[in-house]
């Protein structure tokens, strides 16, 4: 069974949308210094879309093959092996960091005093169990997670409408376009994720609609980020946003609806949002396991289990959440950049070699 186009779109959405949404307003405002970050979000979305389309096009040239398999045909075995290893490490670090931010948030808001390893270990195991099933079960689980998390997030955001003051978003481009470009440094990181197309397209029923799936996914993700940025900046103003580590969570804290079952929404939505962390973690875990097994010809199950201790090790490396963000920044700049550059080179070589889209 292959992935349908909506399934692919949901996979991409769940992969892109995770930790970033909780911190995006702060990191973006810190870079930009103006309330224009919603423009940064839009532009970064566009940028991400362009990259996603390029990568989908590249993968579409080799139906049924992941980048680990077809890279060798373009640039030779050893360079391809090196590139594949970089990607495996990249995905491993992403999934480990995702587990780490989950651990940080959980121990801060839900389980104070519980040791970090106790929080993260069952999380890693549950992920490994899902990843062992392969891409179809992952996709099915994501299909369930997406509407639950999406609807509850939107609902909570809508509940906060009455504390939002849109005047705080003004002036638009008060200091010209330069802060917008600066802010994009942060927002672009939130949109890192096109690289997953290098793997997903191989499993699609119709590889040709990969671009369409990606466009829809980026559209949804942009919408979520936009709502998030507008709401948080509209509530706290830019000064308030920079002062908070988790501005989105604080937004949910800032209002109270008497008479409803829950009093503080942030814990509820955090509990729900754990599923999103789980999605990103699981899909990058899958991507790295698949890479390991395809590059080094080891059984897939072995690849999954072999990584588990390493994921845990990477997970405990950063001393504090600030380090996680730093590594993440670096990773999104260097890692994503590297992958994108290589991918563009691959596409160029493919064009030179005259490999055409397979007629399906």
């Amino acid at each position, binding site marked *: 069974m292959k992935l349908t186009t909506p399934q692919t779109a949901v996979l991409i959405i769940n992969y892109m949308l995770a930790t970033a949404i909780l911190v995006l307003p702060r990191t973006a405002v810190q870079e930009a210094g103006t309330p224009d970050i919603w423009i940064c979000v839009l532009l970064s979305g566009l940028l991400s879309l362009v990259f996603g389309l390029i990568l989908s096009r590249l993968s579409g040239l080799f139906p049924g093959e992941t980048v680990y398999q077809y890279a060798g045909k373009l640039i030779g075995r050893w360079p391809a092996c090196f590139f594949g290893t970089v990607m495996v490490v990249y995905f491993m670090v992403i999934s480990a960091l995702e587990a780490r931010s989950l651990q940080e948030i959980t121990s801060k808001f839900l*389980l104070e005093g519980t040791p970090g390893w106790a*929080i993260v270990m069952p999380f890693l195991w549950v992920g490994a*169990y899902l990843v062992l099933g392969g891409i179809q079960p992952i996709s099915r689980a994501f299909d369930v997670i997406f509407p639950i998390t999406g609807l509850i997030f939107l609902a909570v955001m809508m509940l906060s409408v009455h504390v939002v003051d849109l005047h705080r978003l003004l002036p638009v481009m008060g200091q010209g376009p330069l802060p917008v470009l600066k802010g994009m440094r942060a927002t672009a990181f939130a949109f890192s994720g096109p690289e997953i197309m290098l793997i997903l397209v191989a499993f699609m029923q119709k590889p040709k609609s990969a671009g369409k799936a990606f466009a829809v996914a980026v559209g949804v993700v942009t919408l979520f980020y936009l709502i998030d940025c507008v709401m948080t900046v509209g509530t706290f103003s830019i000064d308030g946003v920079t002062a908070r580590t988790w501005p989105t969570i604080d937004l949910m804290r800032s209002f109270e609806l008497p008479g*409803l*079952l829950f009093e503080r929404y942030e814990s509820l939505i955090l509990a729900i949002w754990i599923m999103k962390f*789980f999605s990103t973690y699981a899909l990058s875990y899958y991507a790295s396991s698949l890479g390991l097994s395809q590059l080094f010809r080891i059984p897939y199950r072995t690849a999954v289990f072999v990584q588990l201790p390493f994921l845990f090790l990477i997970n405990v490396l950063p001393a504090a959440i600030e380090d996680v963000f730093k590594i993440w920044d670096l990773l999104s700049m260097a890692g994503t950049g590297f992958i994108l550059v290589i991918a563009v080179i691959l596409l160029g070589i493919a064009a030179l070699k005259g490999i055409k889209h397979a007629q399906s």
Partner: protein
Amino acid sequence: MSRESGGSAPAGVESSWSGSYVRNMALIRKSMETNADIKLRAFTISHGREACLAYVDGLADLKAIDMLLLSKLGDPTSDEGSIENVELAVRRTLPSIIGAAWSDDYALILNRIRSGSTALLMDGLSQALLLETVKDQTRSLEEPISEAVLRGPRIGFCESLQLNTALLRSAGEAPNMAMEKMTVGREIRKEIMIVYMTDIVRAGLVEEVKKRIAAIDIDHLPESGYVEQLVEDNFLSPFQQIQNTERPDRVIAGILEGRVGILLDGTPFALLAPATFSMLIQSPEDYYDRWLPGSLIRLLRFASVVICLLTPALYIAFTSFHPGLIPTKLALSIIGARQGVPFPSLIETLIMEVSIEILREAGLRLPKPIGPAMGIVGGLIIGDAAVQAGIVSPILVIVVAITAISSFVIPQYSAGITLRILRFAAMICAATFGLYGVVLFILLLLAHLARLESFGVPYLSPLVPYRPRDWKDLLLRLPLPLLRKRPSFLSPQNEFREDNG
């Protein structure tokens, strides 16, 4: 393989059937040493010739035989003439009245006798005549106990395979309804009937079912639960991947969706494969009622599933980990009610949940008039006394009662059991990690359900992967005129169930 030899040949006697009546009689007599339930009835037919009936007492229905034989053969004055004439008369009359076959295969004859046929041996005839005299050992058709409906047919399957297949056939003239017979069992052979619609069922599904049933190698299949457990995809899963039902209308509805029904001789429980999670929460009644009540009741059932699974876990999570999450007044009243309770909330909840499980199991085994009384004594008196004694908090009694009641809403009893088991897992997760534990539990459950498949159909379908067309008959049951197509996740050959337009 002693499957066909039907018992070892008696020592000392020549083991093969022969033309000699006396030798054949000796052969059967000898076999009666280990088959004491076989009866031999010798009598004399016309012209003083010896004849003998061999049958198992109680299993074979002798009334028909008696009438027949006595009227045709037993009359010594009848003028049938020579031995050839008798044989001719028997050959002519008997097979036309009840099923009969001639055989000289000793093993076959012995096997058939033991499964209810009657063998007629006659002096001068080399073959034995095997008469199909199996008595129908059935009870009357009753309403299924485990799947009661308010509206709908009141007939349930019974223990006889012939009667069950007849029940399915009697649904109406169905030229495409196919039934295939298989025989399974190493020591005790039993018949299994596979029922499907030739024009609807997904290509390859019947072959898969047959392949899996043929692979069963076990001494005996006492109940269809054995078949279920031996052919399901994942025997470690707490979820049943094959639906069981006592209701013929459910089997009919199932095969019309493109599924395969499996009927085993000797049990009123038929199986339907593949099964998905949503099917276990549906009841035939959803379709018999009008769509609005049908839909609302379905929603209620889905809500009950969530309540049954998570309420005790959430109670534990909120009281021991996050009292701040619930409104202050509610938190105060819950904490206030827990004042003086000497146990942590996990122990408190476990005590109550386990005792209600005990009550339920006890009520099930008791005779009908006592069962409800047990429930009242247990539920009301013990619960009240426990609160009075200060062992548990009154809020917990509410939680436990609601959980227990909601698990009864699941129309499929065995699916309800799954939820009852998982509830305890959820409670332990909640006691370890609070709300985070509950989410982890949900994720683990989700991962498991996402991985599970039943005969190639994802267990979570039609919910995921997204099939908007099938959602019309999932959480809601939209009006019948809108449900013109069969569920697509079962990939039926013929999609349309209403006007092929």
